[in-house]
């Protein structure tokens, strides 16, 4: 499919994401300006506060965005999942350039001019409004410009906390190895950044001194025309968005008792499993809110914070990453331990296993496997010194990942394994950038990219049975949930799961549609 026909076909969704993105950036920039400029002014009046406040703003800006989102989710008022959390994070990032430039701009006003203002008998507020702010304006607008461009970039990560925006396409595109999706997310974001930069640049030039000449009425008219066009475009955009938002709010309000928030992690399989529950619940007239594609342990934090009711998880992940136990190989023991501890510690129920395991799959290219006649990891170990490996951040860092794995099989590679985004490792392997990766056993692209899974002949990897984690109070509140989970117990085989993943990842089919067909076929 060409990029342009992709755009044409997905225009409604893309325009929604664009609006969400713009909305996030504009609201956060507006809030940051409303906080940042007065703060900057205060700092010019109270010199002793300047160091500490700018220091704090500086530190806030160095927090990695995903970490900041993770930190915000459990917070009572600012946190949660969705636009509000994203806006809070974006405001945090936007504050530093705005505060700093307000201070720099005002402090930079010619002392002769300020002295003249005082000596002419101007009062403090008159000096601020008539002299300092107008003269500092170009510098302040530069700050807003920087903040906005940063915001447009960071807002792509907002997709990780379910706030939508163009990041949804970027994350999805990375996961599905789909350049159209990647471009459809990245290009509009880049264009938006350039437009904001250019527009604010015009405004900045308008306020700078050499332009204030007799002829400037002309350029003033031009700026006014530009602002008018911008306002019209934004109004059209948000008019539709707001009315849609309001009506969806109204529709949701009365159904509160049978309303449920379904979450997923940021990879296809998790989203498919979440969608299965969501659709089955909707068929039983439960109102479902979807918060998919949450990164790292965000779904866990969100569930404990009461902002998520249910999400799919793997027992092994809960056992090692959440409960911090050493990995063991008995699936039943893992399941029982997780179930017991989740009930005690978190008030969270664990469903019956869904019927398939998703464990680390050590993958090489199919061509290579056939040429060297390799079946197991042990057999492959002797070729490893000539190979390069690429692993996801997760696999590199966890105890049951690379450190233990390489020891168990005595593996040594040609160079230190590359640490990269998990989605990207499949692409890296298929395109000969690396020679061995650790993927997911149910990954749809294993077949699509002709990759070969080496057998874990020493049974190193612990079992990762798929289950749903549900808040116990939700289980009590929504009667339909128990029925749905009972139906789903032991109902998805590894092959079936791989097939579902393949449909979405390789055939690039709509996930909701794939799930709908599967539910129909199963007669759920």
């Amino acid at each position, binding site marked *: 499919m060409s990029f342009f026909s992709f755009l044409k076909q997905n225009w409604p969704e893309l325009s929604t994401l664009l609006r969400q993105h713009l909305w996030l950036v504009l609201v956060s920039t507006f809030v940051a300006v409303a906080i940042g400029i007065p703060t900057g002014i205060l700092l010019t009046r109270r010199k002793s506060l300047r160091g500490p406040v700018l220091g704090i703003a500086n530190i806030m800006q160095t927090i990695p965005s995903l970490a900041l989102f993770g930190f915000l989710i459990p917070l009572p008022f600012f946190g949660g999942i969705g636009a509000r959390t994203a806006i809070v994070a974006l405001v945090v990032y936007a504050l530093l350039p705005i505060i700093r430039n307000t201070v720099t701009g005002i402090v930079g006003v010619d002392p*002769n001019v300020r002295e*003249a203002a005082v*000596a*002419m*008998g*101007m009062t403090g507020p*008159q000096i601020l409004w008539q002299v300092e702010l107008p*003269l500092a304006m170009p510098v302040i607008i530069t700050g807003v410009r920087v903040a906005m461009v940063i915001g447009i970039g960071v807002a792509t990560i907002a997709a990780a906390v379910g706030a939508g925006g163009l990041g949804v396409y970027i994350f999805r595109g990375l996961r599905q190895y789909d350049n159209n999706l990647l471009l459809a997310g990245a290009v509009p974001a880049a264009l938006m950044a350039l437009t904001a930069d250019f527009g604010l640049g015009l405004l900045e030039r308008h306020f700078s001194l*050499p332009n204030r000449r*007799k002829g400037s009425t002309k350029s003033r008219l031009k700026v006014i025309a530009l602002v008018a066009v911008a306002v019209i475009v934004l109004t059209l955009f948000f008019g539709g968005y707001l009315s849609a938002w309001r009506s969806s709010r109204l529709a949701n309000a009365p159904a509160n008792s049978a309303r449920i928030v379904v979450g997923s992690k940021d990879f296809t399989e998790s989203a498919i499993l979440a969608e299965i529950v969501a659709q089955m619940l909707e068929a039983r007239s439960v109102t479902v809110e979807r918060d998919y594609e949450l990164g790292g342990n965000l779904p866990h934090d969100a569930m404990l914070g009461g902002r998520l009711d249910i999400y799919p998880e793997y027992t092994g992940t809960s056992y090692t990453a959440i409960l911090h136990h050493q990995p063991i190989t008995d699936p039943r023991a893992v399941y029982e331990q997780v179930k017991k501890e989740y009930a005690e510690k978190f008030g969270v129920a664990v469903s019956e296993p869904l019927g398939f395991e998703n464990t680390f799959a050590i993958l090489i290219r199919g061509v290579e496997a056939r040429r060297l006649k390799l079946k197991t990891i042990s057999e492959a170990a002797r070729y490893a010194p000539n190979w390069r490996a690429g692993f996801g951040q997760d696999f590199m860092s966890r105890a049951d990942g690379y450190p233990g794995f390489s020891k168990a099989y005595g593996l040594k590679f040609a160079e230190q394994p590359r640490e990269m985004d998990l989605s990207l490792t499949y692409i890296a392997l298929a395109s000969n950038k690396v020679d061995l990766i650790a993927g997911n056993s149910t990954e749809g692209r294993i077949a699509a990219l002709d990759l070969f899974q080496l057998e874990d002949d020493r049974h190193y990897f612990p079992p990762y049975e798929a289950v749903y984690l549900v808040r116990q109070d939700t289980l009590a509140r929504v009667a339909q949930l128990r029925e749905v989970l009972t139906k789903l117990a032991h109902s998805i085989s590894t092959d079936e799961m791989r097939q579902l993943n393949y449909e979405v990842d390789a055939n690039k089919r709509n996930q909701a549609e794939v799930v709908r067909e599967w539910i129909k076929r199963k007669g759920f």
Partner: protein
Amino acid sequence: MSETLKKPLVEFKDVSFAHPSAAAPIISHLNFSVAPGETLVLLGESGCGKTTTLKLINCLLMPAAGEVVVEGKATTAWDPIRLRRRTGYVIQEGGLFPHFTVAQNVGLVPALEGWQQARIKSRVAELLSLVGLEPGEFADRYPAELSGGQRQRIGVARALAADPPLLLLDEPFGALDPLTRASLQREFSDLSKRLNKTAVFVTHDVREALLLGSRIGLMHAGKLLLLETPKNFLNSNNEQAIAYLETLRVSAGSVQEDAP
């Protein structure tokens, strides 16, 4: 001159001033008065305290000891804003607002005082003509579009805008080229006589002091050494005064700077 018999407009009574951080006082035990209509020139090298003295008059600084009396009232008793609006202030390069037009700069104090637009406009035109600039040509320009001499004229016009009884000038012509400076000095001399303004004028240029002052106050290290009319200053046997006059004689022979 009958004005010298009137009550002084500005009076320094044993005034001292020191920066909180500095050990030595910037000025100490200053006593003098400025009579209505006269131009008192404070002459001295950089750091002698002459600018500090000027700033004590319009409440930009407050005395550490003694009191500065303006129009019969100590500066500590004045509302600083009121006093400053009754006092014209001219600094080097004019200190014009770069984002204001010439008309806005000149009309600043009248606008602050809430005058009607029409009155401000006619006053601005009147003042621009007074300082030798064609109102139609200059009113809508910005300071960056003017020459140094023109900016200085605007600075003087702005100080005169609300017709204040007192003018304070801090080396207003210091940054100008010699020819422009000489012509502005002449014009200022005429203007202050014609308008009968009282002025305190700070400079380090002895020629300027002799040309403009009705009296010259010679300052050194925060003290007033001498307070004389130009005629008496020329004949003074004070060492500092002689040193200043000496530079005048030498430079007249060899340096082009002060050649008329």
